[in-house]
């Protein structure tokens, strides 16, 4: 069965600091990878997704993620965070044969102004 591991449950950064959130998945075949964000009181929103092609994916709000197949990783990055990036971030995977998302436990990011 697929699983997703997010390394940090809580991250606290100051504004303008760089962000990297780790995500590893376990599945040997072809996968589609996602990062979702949930702002306080709001629904899950798609940040970015990888299906094929360039392993460096750019998403909304200056976020990007890099798919490294050999490491089964899909880490999320942002060069300079803002206070408004305070939210919970979820990594998720779908196998090539499935259509249900498998989520990690989430990382709560707090950005101090």
């Amino acid at each position, binding site marked *: 069965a697929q699983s997703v591991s997010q390394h940090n449950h809580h991250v606290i950064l100051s504004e303008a600091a760089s962000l990297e959130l780790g995500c590893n998945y376990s599945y040997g075949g072809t996968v589609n990878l996602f990062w979702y964000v949930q702002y306080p009181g*709001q629904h899950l929103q*798609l940040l970015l997704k990888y299906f094929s092609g360039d392993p460096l994916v750019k998403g909304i709000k200056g976020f990007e993620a890099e798919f490294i197949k050999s490491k089964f990783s899909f880490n999320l990055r942002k060069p300079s965070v803002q206070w408004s990036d305070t939210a919970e971030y*979820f990594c998720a995977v779908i196998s090539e044969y499935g259509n249900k998302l498998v989520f990690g436990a989430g990382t709560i990011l707090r950005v101090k102004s």
Partner: protein
Amino acid sequence: GAGVSQSPRYKVAKRGQDVALRCDPISGHVSLFWYQQALGQGPEFLTYFQNEAQLDKSGLPSDRFFAERPEGSVSTLKIQRTQQEDSAVYLCASSLVVKQTNNYGYTFGSGTRLTVV
């Protein structure tokens, strides 16, 4: 509507009570999913519909959980004889297509927060 609508937004149930949670997907969306998100956890898959057909219910935790989508649009998740461990946020998501491609994805609702006391 413009998004996935779930109701009620909050539900408090006494242990043993039956509850029904409603999901209105985006019009025309074929796929509909239910997820359960416990406190401090990521969403976990419960069940999947393709139109009115329930194709996967492998995530339903017990036979107290039942979902339906009789006309292929609105879906209802019913929990019978609620227990404290059922307390969670129940998320609904819909998708235009059956198989994910680079052009499409899920749209999530805001969820129903169920508290069983």
